[in-house]
């Protein structure tokens, strides 16, 4: 049972397969949830014909992708054209080895000393598939989409990485399990690192080419961007990689800022020790908590998509380089000052005050409309 072979090869593989299947089910479900929710947001129905409330759409879509005709453009660079959809899938799947889904050691696949850096490294290679696919299609719109995506993903990699630094400084580790264990004895990191949390949210939307930042596939400018020439299963692979990366980024968000599999702060509530006392059930409960949190962030992705209009390309670059990166650097500076002063707990007030201000802004009583429209409007 505990031979080295079992310990190093068989159990990790089994765990990885389970995590992989869970994630694939989530990806398939997410496709349906996104379309239904977008329908809700835009006051229309969304897919509702196949099965109860359109639930069988989850199966109908892959079947459609499998049966569609697979078209390869005559002038495409064949090898690169086939590699394009497959390359981004590899890092998107490997990353799930490194994410702690539940209390260790049973519910994590591997635990690496530099886990967070490895995840960053793997996610940063996802861009190759998009560039390669865009270039190999031999279509100027595809190429434009691929180039845009390269510029965008390399640019937003910087605030993405910098926003994590503050968390690392507070927790003092690159190991995701240690970061979660730190958060359950202290506050969840979104309180002291609310700025970093915000930057991470924006950067992960940009990394995944999601709607306010979906310029690589802007349909009104570039037909469909880098996947214009892709049909059937190859297109499905691009979508699969994108949704997998969305789930990876949501997992990172939950692990870094929202306490991972725990449901408690300051050592109170469902912490790792409490979950461990419950045995196997506690582990499954922790995993369920983790998955629920991840799904909440997936819903936020959809919410973003329904709410914000698309940026222009220079606006996107401006936002990344002139706002996000200085903000992230400032956040690191402020965090360092608080840590040097030994007053890390004072930083919680930053989070509490900013959440309070946001709530006040959201729920403030609406001002009375001016009596005659057209007279007062836009006086300034």
């Amino acid at each position, binding site marked *: 049972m505990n031979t080295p072979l079992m310990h190093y090869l068989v159990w990790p593989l089994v765990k990885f397969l389970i995590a992989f299947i869970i994630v694939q089910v989530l990806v398939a479900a997410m496709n349906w949830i996104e379309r239904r929710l977008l329908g809700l947001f835009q006051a229309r129905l969304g897919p509702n014909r196949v099965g109860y409330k359109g639930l069988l759409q989850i199966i109908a879509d892959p079947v459609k992708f499998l049966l569609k005709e697979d078209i390869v453009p005559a002038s495409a660079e064949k090898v*690169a054209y086939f590699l394009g959809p497959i390359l981004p899938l590899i890092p998107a799947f490997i990353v799930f080895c490194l994410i702690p889904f539940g209390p260790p050691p049973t519910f994590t696949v591997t635990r690496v000393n530099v886990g967070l850096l490895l995840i*960053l490294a*793997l996610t940063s290679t996802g861009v*190759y598939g998009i560039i390669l696919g865009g270039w190999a299609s031999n279509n100027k719109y595809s190429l434009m989409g691929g*180039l845009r995506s390269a510029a965008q*993903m390399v640019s937003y990699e910087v605030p993405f990485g910098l926003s994590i630094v503050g968390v690392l400084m507070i927790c003092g580790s690159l190991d995701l399990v240690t970061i979660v264990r730190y958060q359950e004895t202290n506050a969840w990191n979104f309180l002291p690192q609310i700025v970093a949390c915000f930057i991470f949210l924006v950067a992960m939307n940009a990394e995944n080419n999601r709607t306010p930042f979906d310029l690589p596939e802007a349909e009104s400018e570039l037909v469909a961007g880098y996947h214009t020439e892709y049909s059937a299963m190859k297109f499905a692979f691009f979508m699969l990689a994108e949704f997998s990366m969305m789930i990876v980024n949501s997992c990172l968000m939950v692990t870094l800022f929202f306490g991972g599999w725990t449901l408690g702060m300051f050592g109170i509530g469902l912490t790792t020790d409490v979950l461990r006392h419950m045995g196997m059930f506690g582990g499954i409960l922790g995993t369920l908590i983790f998955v629920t949190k991840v799904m909440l962030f997936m819903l936020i992705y959809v919410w973003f998509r329904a709410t914000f209009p698309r940026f222009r390309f220079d606006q996107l670059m401006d936002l990344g380089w002139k706002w996000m990166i200085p903000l992230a650097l400032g956040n690191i500076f402020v965090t360092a000052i608080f840590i040097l002063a030994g007053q890390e707990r004072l930083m919680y007030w930053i989070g509490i005050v900013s959440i309070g201000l946001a709530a006040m802004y959201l729920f403030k009583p609406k001002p009375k409309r001016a009596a005659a429209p057209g007279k007062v409007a836009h006086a300034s």
Partner: protein
Amino acid sequence: MEFAIFFFFAAVAVIFALVVVLHRNPVVGALSLVASFFALAVMYVLLEAPFLAALQVIVYAGAIMVLFLFVIMLLNLQHVAEPVTRPVQQFLGYTSGAAFGLGLLYYIVKYAVFAKLPAGPFVTDARTIGIKLFEAYVFPFEMVSILLLAAIVGALLLSGRQYQKREAAP
């Protein structure tokens, strides 16, 4: 097991490096260089430096090679025919390169074959490197950051001037 991993990835690194040098399409060259860098990252893990392996993938594969591919595609270089190198130059290049390589190998085999590694684990986690970097190497670190700033300004100046001229021309 370790030796199998080493020889497999060493072969991958060398083969893809050869593709970089011999293939005439720069896009294929850039992609094989990425593969070669990945194999080197595995070597770093074998050398007990997983931190630098992650950095290698982030910096080289994630940023520098994307930049190379970006420029190759932006300039559409795969259609520009590369002129054939003169046979004399090719012959001289290969022979002097081979001579240089053989010399290197000779010196490694003669002087750099160590009997055994020192005992004990070699601690190379992020904490050790970070402390070293910000205590003993603080001055070089600042110099490198100034160098990077200079590189940003230089790159902007070099490639930005073009567009100003083009706007002024018509």
